[in-house]
C-alpha cells in the first residue's frame, strides 16, 4: 500500500493508466486513458484506512457533538412551544 506523499503527488498530478490489461477491448483502453488511477469505481469503492485520532480529539468531538445535540433540542423545544 502506498502512503508516501511524494508518490501520491506523482499519482495525482494527472498521471493516468494507459493500458492496464492487454486483453482489454480497445474502446475500454481509450476510456481508461482519461481517468486517474484512483478515480475508478473499483478503487473508490474500497474504504480508506481509519485515522488514528488522539484521545483529546475524540473527547473534543464528543463534547461538541453533545453540545450541538443539547442546543438542537432547545431549538426544537422552543419551536414546538411557539406552535402553542
Amino acid at each position, binding site marked *: *500500500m502506498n*502512503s508516501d506523499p511524494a508518490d501520491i503527488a506523482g499519482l495525482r498530478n494527472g498521471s493516468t493508466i494507459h493500458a492496464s490489461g492487454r486483453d482489454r477491448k480497445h474502446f475500454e483502453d481509450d*476510456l481508461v486513458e482519461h481517468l486517474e*488511477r*484512483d478515480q*475508478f469505481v473499483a478503487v473508490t469503492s474500497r474504504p*480508506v*484506512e481509519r485515522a488514528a485520532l488522539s484521545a483529546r480529539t475524540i473527547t473534543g468531538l464528543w463534547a461538541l457533538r453533545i453540545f450541538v445535540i443539547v*442546543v438542537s433540542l432547545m431549538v426544537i423545544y422552543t419551536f414546538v412551544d411557539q406552535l402553542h
Partner: protein
Amino acid sequence: MATTGADTPQALDAPLTGEDAARSRDRLQVQSAREGRKRWRLLWLLVGPGILAMLGENDGPSMIAYASDGAQYGIGFFVPFIPLLFLMAYVCQEMCMRVGAVTHRGYGELVLQRFGRVWGWFGAGDLTLTNLVTLIAEFVSIRVGLAYFHLGVGIAVALGLVLVLFTLSGGRYWRWERIVLGMALFNGLFLLAAILVKPDISAVARSLDFSPFPGGSFNTLLLLLASTIGATVTPWMIFFQQSASADKGMTPRDINHGRYDTAVGAVLAAIFGIGALIAGAALLTHGGSGIQGFAGAGFPEALRRVAGGAAGTVFALGLIEAGAVAILTISASTAYAAGECIGVSHSFNSSPRNAALFYAANFGVALVAAAVILIPGVPLLSIALNANVLATVLLPVSLVLMVMLANDKGLMGPWANKRSTNVIGIAVIAFVGICGAAYGIDSFLQTVHLVGS
C-alpha cells in the same frame, strides 16, 4: 493517501463500470480543452458544483429571510454582512471542493471510513433532518410563488416532483448539472426585482459601513444572525459540493478552476441575496407589510401593492425558481449521503438500476417533503422560518470534520490545508457556533421563563 488498495493492479483489473465510462467521456472533453489551451472552454467544462452549492443555498427560506431583514430593518448592516457571510461560505466550500477533487470521494463516506461509523451516521442524521425540514420549506416557497398566480398547493407539489424526476432521467452527471445550472441562473430574478423597486443607490452605498445596526431585542438580533448565517452556510452544501466534485470527476489539476467556480457562485449568490434584501426593503416604510402573509401570497403580493405588478411578479417567479433549484440540489445531497454511508453506488453517472438506492433516496426525500405540505394544518410558516436556524445550530460539527479532512495529509498529501486556511476556517466555525448556540440557549431560557424577553 491512506492505504486503500487503490494502487494495486488487482483493483485496476476490475471491469470498467458504466459510471467509469461516463466520467471518462467528460474527462476527455476536459483533457482536450486543456491540451488545446481553450481557457474559456475549460472553465465552462469545470464550473458547476460551486455555483450550484452557492445558488442552491439562495433558496426559498433564504430569500425570504433576506427580504424579511430588508422589510423589518432596511438594508443597513445587511448589505455588507451578506457578502461577508458568502466569504465565509467560500472558505468552507473551497475545502469541500478540494477534498472531493483530491480523494474522489464524498464527505459522508470519508467521515464514515476515516473517523468511524458513529461520526458518519451522526453527520448523515444531521443532514437528513435539516434537509427534510429545508425541503418542506422549499415546497412552501414554490407554493407562495404560485399562490401569487392563483395556483394551488397541488401544482407546487407536482412541479417540484416532476422536476426531480426529469433531472434524474438522463443517467449522466453532466446532464443533471447543466439543467440545474441553467435553472439556477434565474436566481438573478431577485436582482431584477431589486431594480424594479427603484432603490436609492446612495442609501445602498452608505450602508457599506455596517450601519445602521438592526435594533430590537437581543434575542431578535440573535435570530437575525442565526437565520442569515443559515441562509448562507449549511450542512447540505458541504455534502453536496464534495460529492458533486468527485462525481464530476474533478482532479487536483482542476482545483484552481474549482476555486473560480466556487468564487463565482459566492459572488452571484451575494448579489442576488442583496437583491432580495433591497426588494424586501421596499416594504420597510409600509410597516414590513406582507411578512405575516407568508403562508399565502405574502411577499410578492405586498411588493405588488408597493412597487407595482412587475416587481411582485418577478419576486414570485424568483421564489418558484429558488425553491425548485434547492429541491434538486438538496435532494441530491441527501442521495449522495445515503449512498455513501450505506456503501452502495452513488453517482448520477450510474443508471437507476445500478444505483437504485441513490435514485430512490433522491426522489424519496422530495416525496416525503411534498407529502408534508399537503397535510392540512401543518405549521408551514414556522417550519420555513426555523429551517435555517436548525441548520446553523447543527453546522459546527460538520465544519469541524471538514477541516479535519482537509488537514489530513494522509488523504490530501500536498493539497492539505495551509495554516492561513485553518485560521480562517476555525474563526468561521467559532462564529457560526457561537451565533447558533447563543440563539438556541437564549430562546430556550425565554421559553421556560428563566430570563425575560
